């Protein structure tokens, strides 16, 4: 008799194992297959901090969570329905993420005496037995043994055979969720094109896993998740860092500029450097500099030379770039500064997410050095916002900060990608050559948007000098005149504010246009806030939310939007940063914060609690 298949609206699965168990690959393969099946989804990889933490320890556990459904999915899921654990340490680290009554698939081979002791279980502990008595469904498999049996004819050395364990498990999961395996099969063929025997072994393990699930009736029920009703169109799956790379390529193409990307390796931003370095045939030059300072100053040099220039880092590295950012401000040259934020201070928790560099981006410089700050709200939104950053920096000759974070950088979601043609145009103009008979060139003469000309070397008649010393208005000559300095300070601030004329108006994302409570968020908290507000609004509460992607300057209508609500709640994964900016700019409005700084995204349920509490206050 076939196992009965039940329909589910949404499911969350977490794969967890040792760093060497291939859990990221397993998760991303499941993600692709799920996306191709038409589900909406959101993922969250959970990397160990150390590259090679001792095998079998809790520090070495690598996890990957995916939340998918036939409804719209905004977050990777608060807790999981299915937890796959390859060893005792993975169970120890992740049991708390499993829902009551959830399913655990455990590789019993990873629960030997040594594994238990490495995971710091006591000599008397039997965690798998405890699970059974705690109301969870436990499926025990000896994955090592099963994989070895599956591949006993492969002729591969045991080490290579054991590397296919994750595919055996993935096969079982595919069976459990009635999934097609084609996409993973062709992925394996491509990945191991040069090692056909390894490809064959992985594919066999995958298929045998599926068959094993079926033949042994491993589970009393199977699940099916129907395609989600999402906007029609062509989709792909994308992470935030990938989307950032594509956004830079798109801006390069649409602006007609050559691009220079100066960077220094840092977690979790390095994938942007890796991605762009592959795009040389798109006119993108990447430069891995000797340090963070060189990464940004080389970009400033390239910008002076007429390239679309970007630099990337994470908070600790941004701190090193600070002096150069203020140089870019006074030079009034285009420059995009990407900060994929992570938990600080100092080295902090490099693989964990946080929103704690907003004030650094807004104010963290010597002198009065205003610039534009943008923040993407989801993995795919990284594309739109880096594109906007490039557009604004070129059109306004002002540095732009792009504040992504570790969560959306590595998290993935389906993306209805645009066509080149549909992208907003980027207007850039270089100053024209001048004859000797014309009036002298004035590098700091501004247009009606307070923008100065981009006069690049190689243009006859525009020879001029720029530098970090205060400039005389119009001529750009060095000036220590007190009134001029005051004037220039105000002009730089005003010039930043003009950008508000060139960005979209702020929208309410969920709920009514006015009401009792408005939840204001920014950055990667979008999904959790939206899901929480949506659920509460559908339960009849007067709550709305708006999410800021343009943080400096704010959209023009933002202030009046705030006034239409009785209370305002500002949840942030920091100790209250946006709220300080809001209190400064809207002193007559009362703001309340909800702040948790745990290195992980908000759960929907904690936000629902926080919002309900505010509603009842």
């Amino acid at each position: 008799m076939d196992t009965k298949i039940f329909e589910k609206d949404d499911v969350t699965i977490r794969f967890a194992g040792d760093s060497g168990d291939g859990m990221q690959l397993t998760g991303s393969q499941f993600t692709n297959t799920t996306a191709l099946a038409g589900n909406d989804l959101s993922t969250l990889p959970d990397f160990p901090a150390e590259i090679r933490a001792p095998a079998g320890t809790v520090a070495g556990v690598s996890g990957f969570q995916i939340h998918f459904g036939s409804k719209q999915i905004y977050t990777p899921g608060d807790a999981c329905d299915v937890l796959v654990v390859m060893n005792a340490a993975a169970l120890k680290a992740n049991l708390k993420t499993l829902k009551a009554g959830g399913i655990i698939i455990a590789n019993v081979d990873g629960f030997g005496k040594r594994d238990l002791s490495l995971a710091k279980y006591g000599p008397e502990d039997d965690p798998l037995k405890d699970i059974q008595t705690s109301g969870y469904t436990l499926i025990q498999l000896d994955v090592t043994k099963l994989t070895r049996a599956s591949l006993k004819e492969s002729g591969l050395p045991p080490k290579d055979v054991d590397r296919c364990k994750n595919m055996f498990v993935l096969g079982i999961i595919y069976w459990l969720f009635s999934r097609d395996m084609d996409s993973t099969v062709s992925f394996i063929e491509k990945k191991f094109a040069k090692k056909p025997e390894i490809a064959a072994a992985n594919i066999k393990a995958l298929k045998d896993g599926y068959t094993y699930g079926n033949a042994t009736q491993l589970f009393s029920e199977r699940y099916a998740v129907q395609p989600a009703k999402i906007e029609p169109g062509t989709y792909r799956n994308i992470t935030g860092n990938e989307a950032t790379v594509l956004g830079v390529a798109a801006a390069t193409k649409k602006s007609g500029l050559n691009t220079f990307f100066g960077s220094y390796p840092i977690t979790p931003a390095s994938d942007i450097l890796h991605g762009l370095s592959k795009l040389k045939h798109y006119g993108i030059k990447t430069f891995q500099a000797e340090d963070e300072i060189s990464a940004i100053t080389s970009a400033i040099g390239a910008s002076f030379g007429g390239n679309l220039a970007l630099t990337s880092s994470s908070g600790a590295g941004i701190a090193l770039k600070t002096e150069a950012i203020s140089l870019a401000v006074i030079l009034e040259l285009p420059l995009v500064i990407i900060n994929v934020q992570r938990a600080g201070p100092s080295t902090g928790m490099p693989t964990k997410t946080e929103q704690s560099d907003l004030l650094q981006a807004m104010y963290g410089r010597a002198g009065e050095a205003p610039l534009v700050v943008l923040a993407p709200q989801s993995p795919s939104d990284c594309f739109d916002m880096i594109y906007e950053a490039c557009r604004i920096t070129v059109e306004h000759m002002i540095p732009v900060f792009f504040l992504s974070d570790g969560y959306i950088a590595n998290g993935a979601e389906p993306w209805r990608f645009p066509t080149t043609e549909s992208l907003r145009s980027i207007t850039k103009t270089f100053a024209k050559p001048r004859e000797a008979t014309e009036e002298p060139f004035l590098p700091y003469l501004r247009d009606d948007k307070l923008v100065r000309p981009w006069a690049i070397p190689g243009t006859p008649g525009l020879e001029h000098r720029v530098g970090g010393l205060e400039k005389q208005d119009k001529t750009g000559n060095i000036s220590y005149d007190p009134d001029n300095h005051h004037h220039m300070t105000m002009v730089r601030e005003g010039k930043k504010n003009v950008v508000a004329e060139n960005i979209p108006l702020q929208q309410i994302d969920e709920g009514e246009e006015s009401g009792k409570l408005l939840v204001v968020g920014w950055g990667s908290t979008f999904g959790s806030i939206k899901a929480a507000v949506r659920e509460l609004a559908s339960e009849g509460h007067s709550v709305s939310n708006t999410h800021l992607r343009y943080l400096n300057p704010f959209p023009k209508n933002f202030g009046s939007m705030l006034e239409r609500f009785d209370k305002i709640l500002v949840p942030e994964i920091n100790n209250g940063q946006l709220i300080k900016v809001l209190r400064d700019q809207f002193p007559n409005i009362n703001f309340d914060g909800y702040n948790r700084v745990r290195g992980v995204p908000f759960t929907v349920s904690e936000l629902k609690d926080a919002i309900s509490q505010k509603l009842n206050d």
Partner: protein
Amino acid sequence: MEVKEKQLPEYSSKDFSSDQDVRWCPGCGDYTILKQVQNLMPDIGVAKEDIVFVAGIGCSSRFPYYMDTYGIHSIHGRAPAVATGLKIARPELSVWVITGDGDSLSIGGNHLIHALRRNVDLNILLFNNEIYGLTKGQYSPTSPEGMVTKSTPFGSLDHPFNPAALAIGADAGFFARAMDRDPKHMRSIMERAHKHKGTSLVEIYQNCIVFNDGAFESYTDKKLRDDTSIYLEQGEPLIFGKESQFGIRLDGHKPEVVSLSGGFSKDDLWIHDETDHFKAYILSRFFDNNSIEGGFPRPFGVFYDVQKPTYEDQLHSQMNMAVEIRGEGDLDALLAGSETWVVK
């Protein structure tokens, strides 16, 4: 990169002088250097609009303001990095870096050594005055040990950098030394630096008349320098002294000063070879305190000049190769990626 032949106007040195007042102390060695650079520019065969001067911070770094070319006065120590980005972005430009000993050997030491090893085609003029001038007289990374300055009332404890050894150690393709007191020679060295494709480092002994007057007197003073300095000429024996009475001989790999009247002839001497990396390294060690009797003379001229592929040329050929192999990037294909699905 395709370089179009430009019809150049007849430039004079005046064409390279900006309308800004020069603000160095009267008598500062920087004036001679500026004059020689302005004097050289009409002769390098580059259009004025294609020349960029990039500087860091310090007395010398005001230099770009006085040149009627493109220029950036950047951040303390960062000029080589700014210039690197500019040159990568625009390889057809002639990019000059103006820096001082504090700027490039202390706060910006990292950028200097990395520019040298990468071999970006930059001409770096390092004005070495062995002092911090703009901040009014603290010792610098090239100040001799024991030097009493505002910040070292009991004498400096730092061992000074040897810029020649640093450059050769970083595998620079070009290193030369000049002095402000010999402008003609300095001009010829700067011209050589321009001609060298790749990073060229020229150390210029520059007198800071206010805070470190006479620091190089023994090498630069016309009456003294014959006995303390040696001018390097390609293919010529290493000879110095008022009467050309001394030479340098290599005993194996060990150099020694010999007297040409004491049994040695020109044929016994070390013949200067700018392409010999080992000899360049030995020359860079001629860094004795000249008060020591029998020490080596301080060399001036081109130590080393060997052409190597430049960073920017290699990067651009990688870019061209990428286009050749994969074709001009197709943005729509990139946006779609390898796996898509349609939602109806």
